[in-house]
């Protein structure tokens, strides 16, 4: 529920004793009709590529609403006849944020599955837990942040080391489903390798997540390495000329 008492919820519907359908609905706690945001089989949405896909199911999806009446939730959707788990965003219309198969932050892998808990803050940021294709160490679970752009950023990943409240370095074994988001940052729970668990807070600082172009560091690093190689080659060439 947001500050204006709009409640978003997930429910199963039945139309004229027909099949049961899952849907995402809103209701104004101060009165007013229940409104459908999305009902399986009845809603299509704009894909990342600008096409259309059909909502297949929102079963077990826990939606979130912010103070701008924007809503986000996970759903299974049909893309070219294939069901794919998708993160959707509703703001006077339904649109795709990202889906299984998209690049998973900076992990180098792709999303394979989502934990169905959606979070959304007033800036339109969405934090979520997801499984990815495994990295070289076999780690395949992480906490990610995205916005309507669909570009995701890795907040934490299995195998990462975090300093706990007792000053001990702990390695993340898995994410335990505890997750909350505000405009300040993300609170999340992890289980440690070797036992035990902890709650951590990832501070956004002053940066909107959408302005974290980590790849932008890459050209500078390449520039530096290129300069090194250039100097090194010059040295080698001059030495070869000298010896010739």
């Amino acid at each position, binding site marked *: 529920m947001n500050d204006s008492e709009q409640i978003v919820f997930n429910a199963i519907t039945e139309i004229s004793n027909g099949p049961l359908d899952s849907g995402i609905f809103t209701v104004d706690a101060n009165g007013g009709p229940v409104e459908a945001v999305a009902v399986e089989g009845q809603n299509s949405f704009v894909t990342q590529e600008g096409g259309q896909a059909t909502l297949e199911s929102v079963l077990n999806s826990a939606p979130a609403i912010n103070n701008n009446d924007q809503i986000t939730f996970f759903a299974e959707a049909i893309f070219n006849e294939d069901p794919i788990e998708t993160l959707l965003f509703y703001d006077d219309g339904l649109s795709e944020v990202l889906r299984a198969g998209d690049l998973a932050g900076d992990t180098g892998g792709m999303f394979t599955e989502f934990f169905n808990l959606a979070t959304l803050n007033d800036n339109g940021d969405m934090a979520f837990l997801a499984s990815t294709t495994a990295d070289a160490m076999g780690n395949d679970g992480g906490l990610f942040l995205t916005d309507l752009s669909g570009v995701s950023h890795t*907040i934490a990943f299995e195998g990462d080391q975090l300093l706990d409240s007792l000053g001990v370095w702990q390695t993340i074994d898995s994410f335990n489903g505890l997750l909350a988001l505000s405009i300040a940052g993300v609170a999340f729970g992890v289980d440690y390798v070797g036992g035990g668990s902890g709650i951590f807070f990832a501070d956004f600082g002053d940066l909107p997540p959408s302005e974290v172009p980590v790849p932008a560091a890459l050209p500078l690093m390449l520039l530096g390495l290129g300069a090194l190689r250039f100097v090194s080659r010059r040295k080698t060439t001059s030495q070869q000329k000298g010896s010739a």
Partner: protein
Amino acid sequence: MSKLKTLHAFLASIALLGVSLSASPSLATPFTIAPVATTGQAVGPDGQTIIYFGDDASGSKIDVNDLGQVAYTASTTPVGEVPPTGVFRGMAGQAPDIIAYQGDNLGPADGVLFVVGSQVSINNAGETAFTASISTGGTFKDGLFLGDGNAAPAVTAFDGQPAGPVGDSFNSFCRQVSLIMERQLLLDFLKAMLREFSLTAVLGRRLMLLCRAIRLGFLANSSSYPFGWI
């Protein structure tokens, strides 16, 4: 000499990168991760330490406000069949505050907190709402509570309380809700209900609004999207 030049070039490239890192916001570290609480940490009134977070049975939640304060539930030592539970408020770099702890005495009328912690919510004032059971003279009641860490938690709603405009009383409050709502919906509603309030009176109103919303759900049976399982 050429080695020196190479070293200078290397240092220059690092410096270039370093200046950019500090000067360009786009290259700043996006997330600073800090601990809020961990198993083994002392949080209880007598130094009891955290065994695990949540109470397993309820799939408990955490919540965070815009200041970065985190509300969470935890089970603590002594290890036993049912270790004592509590609701805590933590923030990175700060010792946790006890919002409520099993055995807290809420006064002769309201009883003693029996099982604390399942759903929690925190507002920007740091006030934390949670569900719990209380024991009064050998009988148990489920209810909603509000604490700020400075005084014993206040009971805000409980079994038998008049349910405002709905015209009934809460009868086994939490179970009553669960009887008419699918579990996921119940969690959504509880979370929704617990969020954002700042005063007990406001929470009471939210409870009434919740009841109204539930009724709206039933009324929706005649709409184009009749509800089947709530």
